[in-house]
């Protein structure tokens, strides 16, 4: 079985700074090996050579880097690849590449994608808002790999990437944020357009723009060239911090001025999630967002926030498809999703001693 043993990867367990709003931080460094064509132009031989070289370099990592296992896309069934995507351990692009592979650290805080758009995408995944720490983690792996791999690099352009949009530091940091307060208060769209002017890209996780289903957004840096790695990480951290603060004040305002509406919203979501028999994917995302808001605002004080994170991952299609087995069909999936949500909420309530 290629999927990680735990359903919820380490980065999504709900801890970390400002984790009530900033669910996770992901930072990746794009690297290519010197003397090898970039993945978009490599043939099968070149791809296996890169995989072999990177595999050897990963195996040679010092012991304090933790244990890695390498999973080749060719050895995985479609749903297993998709599950890795849903856990954010690999990108959708890697899942599509037959010559691709991923080296996963045992604690799942580091995933090294091999033969994605670049030879290497070194990703650090941490819970909460911690850009500087994510940089430190990815940087250490980068240094250790560079001890046995020579990278394509030029003084002018920095680390050379297949796309000129990634050249320079090869760094892209992104913070996944849950912003129901800003969306409900109508402040999300104007904030996002201001952020765009500051070189920050905002995109919805399950949809586009400020109408993203589930109020989940990825906030990331646009520019990878001309700034030092620390500057990029620090600036995204500061911006993330500001978004967190604004989300908090939006929630406070809503709770002070629209309390009944908020409580009604949360209660309806709770009612549907604990009773519905068919819950489609998009509806689950929207209701879970309301549920999480209720937990954060202590409208539902008996539920643990980590329940939300876990259900976010477990209600995704590939996860359910694996569970549905032979009978996989959208309606079967929706029924499975509804049952899973009811059971998990009931378990969480039993544990917290409610009823």
């Amino acid at each position, binding site marked *: 079985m290629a999927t990680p043993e735990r359903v919820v990867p380490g980065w999504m367990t709900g801890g970390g700074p400002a984790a009530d709003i900033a669910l996770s931080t992901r930072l990746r460094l794009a690297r290519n090996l010197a*003397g090898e064509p970039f993945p978009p132009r490599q043939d099968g031989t070149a791809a296996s050579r890169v995989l072999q070289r990177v595999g050897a370099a990963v195996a040679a990592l010092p012991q304090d880097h933790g244990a890695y296992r390498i999973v080749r896309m060719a050895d995985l069934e479609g749903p297993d690849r998709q599950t890795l*995507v849903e856990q954010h351990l690999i990108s*959708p692009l890697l899942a599509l590449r037959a010559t691709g592979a991923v080296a996963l650290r045992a604690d799942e805080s580091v995933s090294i994608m091999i033969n994605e758009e670049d030879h290497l995408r070194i990703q650090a995944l941490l819970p909460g808002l911690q850009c500087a720490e994510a940089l430190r983690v990815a940087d250490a792996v980068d240094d250790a790999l560079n001890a046995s791999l020579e990278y394509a690099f030029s003084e002018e352009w920095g680390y050379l990437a*297949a796309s000129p*949009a990634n050249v320079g530091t090869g760094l892209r940091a992104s913070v996944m944020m849950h912003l129901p307060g800003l969306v409900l208060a109508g402040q999300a769209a104007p904030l996002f357009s201001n952020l765009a002017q500051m070189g920050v890209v905002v*995109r919805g996780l399950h949809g586009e723009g400020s109408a993203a289903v589930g109020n989940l957004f990825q906030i990331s840096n646009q520019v990878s*060239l*001309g700034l030092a790695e620390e500057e990029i990480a620090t600036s995204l951290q500061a911006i993330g911090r500001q978004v967190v603060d604004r989300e908090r004040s939006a929630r406070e305002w809503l709770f002070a001025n629209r309390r009944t509406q908020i409580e009604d919203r949360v209660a309806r979501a709770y009612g549907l999630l604990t009773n519905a028999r068919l819950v489609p994917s998009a509806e689950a995302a929207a209701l879970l967002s309301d549920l999480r808001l209720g937990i954060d605002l202590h409208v539902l004080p008996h539920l643990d926030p980590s329940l939300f994170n876990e259900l976010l991952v477990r209600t995704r299609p590939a996860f359910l498809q694996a569970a549905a087995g032979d009978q996989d069909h959208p309606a079967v999936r929706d029924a499975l999703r509804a049952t899973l949500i009811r059971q998990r909420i009931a378990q969480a309530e039993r544990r917290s001693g409610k009823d």
Partner: protein
Amino acid sequence: MTCDNCHQRPAKYHVTRVVNGERSEEDLCEECALQRGELAMQLQPSAAIHDLLAGLLEGAKPSLRQQEPQQQCPACGLARAEFARTGLLGCEACYTTFAETLRPLVRRVQGAGRHHGKVPAQAAAHAQDEAVASERLPGSAAPGRTATTPGSAETATARMKIGGLREQMQAAIAAEDFERAAALRDRIRALEGRSRDGHA
């Protein structure tokens, strides 16, 4: 082609599913694919950027075409037209081959033209060697930080070429075409000699 689900919007994604050996295929538009959860949670941010880059290049094309009719990277064979289509480069040497095209493009996308971040240990060590070497050569201009590094495109081109020739040589040996293999070996040696000299 229209979307198999809504039969209205144009299809953008081809979805192939294999469930227990049963294969099913459909063409979906972005909206339906998203709704069905066929597109993963994490959308590819770079996809849009490639299109943008390709678009910028497209806009600049007429004048560039006049300058360099069918420019191609000598190391990996990437043609300018293909870069214009995909927004992706083929190898490190492409950055030299297409440098004139890339500089304004990168400046527009990145807002900067020069790397100010981390330098890999391999290049840092080499830059130091160069500095030491230049001290030993009286009268030579100090080669500064822009001196040739192992990652520089000229040596990269040579390395890519050598890699390609080695493969051809192996193929020739396998086919017992030893005359051709010997000729390839001589070319490899010549290239290796040159790239070493370029470094010394």
